[in-house]
């Protein structure tokens, strides 16, 4: 294995092991989205009777939400863990080694993506267990997992950037409500065309989270929808590239040699 690959592997393994040893870090991302799914799919089942609602199963419609909520947790976990490394001086000690900055980011985010994939498999398994059958079939499930990994990478990069900029776990945690606002002001609970309030519809139209949700949703309830997939992958690529570039720019200040 090359030096860089070795460094990435060791840091990714450390990230995964560290997360697995802190139950709060992985139980919350698994349980909370499922709880919200249960509450919403029970309480909003009547919404499927609205003319134009795309499916008669609200669970299938709402199953997209945990994927995005899981990404928010990935953001927080990625940022908090890195901020803790900064606060405890671990990053300063790493700066004394020949570790490359890119390897640090890749290793750290590798762990986040691994957790994101575990989350996605769990959400899918729960969905299948309660009778949701993805309309896009096995191929769609594969695309869904790739998308989940990309979401974890993109949002994890955002958390990483926040940690590198602030160096404080508390500051990263304080971002959580901001992301939550984005989730709630999207087409999370009802399709955009069925939102009655014009101002809310405009907000949901402008909110990139709506397109992430609709990408996942299209694979589950409508099958292969090029527009939804294009918009979803486009948004996640834009967020990911932007956040990675910002993280790469902020890293040298924290990994000063």
């Amino acid at each position, binding site marked *: 294995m090359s030096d860089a690959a070795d460094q990435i592997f060791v840091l990714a393994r450390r990230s995964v092991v560290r997360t697995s040893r802190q139950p709060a870090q992985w139980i919350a991302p698994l349980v909370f989205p499922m709880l919200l799914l249960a509450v919403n799919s029970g309480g909003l089942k009547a919404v499927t009777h609205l003319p134009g609602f795309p499916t008669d199963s609200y669970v299938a419609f709402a199953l997209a939400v945990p994927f995005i909520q899981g990404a928010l947790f990935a953001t927080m976990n990625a940022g908090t863990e890195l901020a803790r490394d900064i606060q405890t001086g671990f990053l300063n000690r790493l700066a004394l080694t020949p570790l490359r900055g890119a390897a640090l980011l890749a290793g750290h985010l590798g762990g986040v993506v691994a957790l994101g994939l575990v989350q996605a498999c769990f959400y899918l398994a729960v969905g299948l267990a309660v009778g949701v059958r993805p309309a896009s079939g096995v191929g769609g499930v594969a695309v869904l997992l790739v998308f989940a990994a990309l979401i974890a990478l993109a949002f994890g990069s955002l958390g990483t950037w926040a940690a590198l900029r602030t160096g404080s776990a508390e500051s990263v945690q304080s971002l959580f409500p901001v992301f939550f606002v984005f989730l709630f002001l999207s087409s999370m609970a009802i399709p955009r065309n069925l939102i009655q*309030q014009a101002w809310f519809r405009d907000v949901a139209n402008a909110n990139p989270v709506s397109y992430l949700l609709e990408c996942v949703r299209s694979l589950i309830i409508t099958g292969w929808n090029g527009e939804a997939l294009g918009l979803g992958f486009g948004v996640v690529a834009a967020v990911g590239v932007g956040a990675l570039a910002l993280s790469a720019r902020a890293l040298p200040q924290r990994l000063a040699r």
Partner: protein
Amino acid sequence: MRLASVARGVAWRSLHNVFTNPSLLIPQLAFPLFFFTAFAGGLSGVSRVPGFDFAEGYTAFQFVFVLCQSAAFGGVFTGFGIARDFETGFVRRLLLAAPNRTGIVLGYAVAALTRWLVTATFLTAIAFAVGMKVGGSGVDLPALYLLAALVNVAAGLWACGVAMRLRTMQAFPVMQFPVFLALFFAPVYVPLHLLQGWIHGVAYVNPLTRVLEAGRSFIAGAPSEAGVAFGVAAALAVLFAFWALRGLRSAEAAG
């Protein structure tokens, strides 16, 4: 007399901490407003579901839920403050100094109620500003606030009891989670009769369902099940008062 002076001191300190610290005050005001916006705005289409018959509209329908939610979480947030006071050692010093320790619990409960009243005023002003409709002549509205105040007291005493027993900030989820479940396993988005499946069964036996349904009837100007709702809310407050006082004894015993 000693009870009142201890309660006044604890309540004043707790309120002073909240109202001079933006990081505590802003979430208390912003979160209910955010939920109100997200639910009343984003889900307004729910009012077109066949069988949805709440005449005052979806904004008023959701206002009642968000008001009760802000009341419950106002109480829980006060529990967070008590846990923080334990970790900093403040409550232990208070236990040594207070001539009547029951006043400590009373003081925290008064603080929870007072801070919620500020949130409720803010939320109400916003709701009317965005055109919320109230049925009847509005004379039933005070009953809605009284009902929500009882929810606030009950939730505050619940969180206080947990904080007194566990005495650590790590107890936050223990305070928050049952309240969250009780709130969201009630008819949040649609009336009880429109819920289907398992959630209807859960909501039917959930005591907060009575509170929400009565609260919505107050805002519609056609009170129904008021006695049951007040009975349930008062019973919860009394039950959790015992829970909090037993927690106080547990904290005393722990030293």
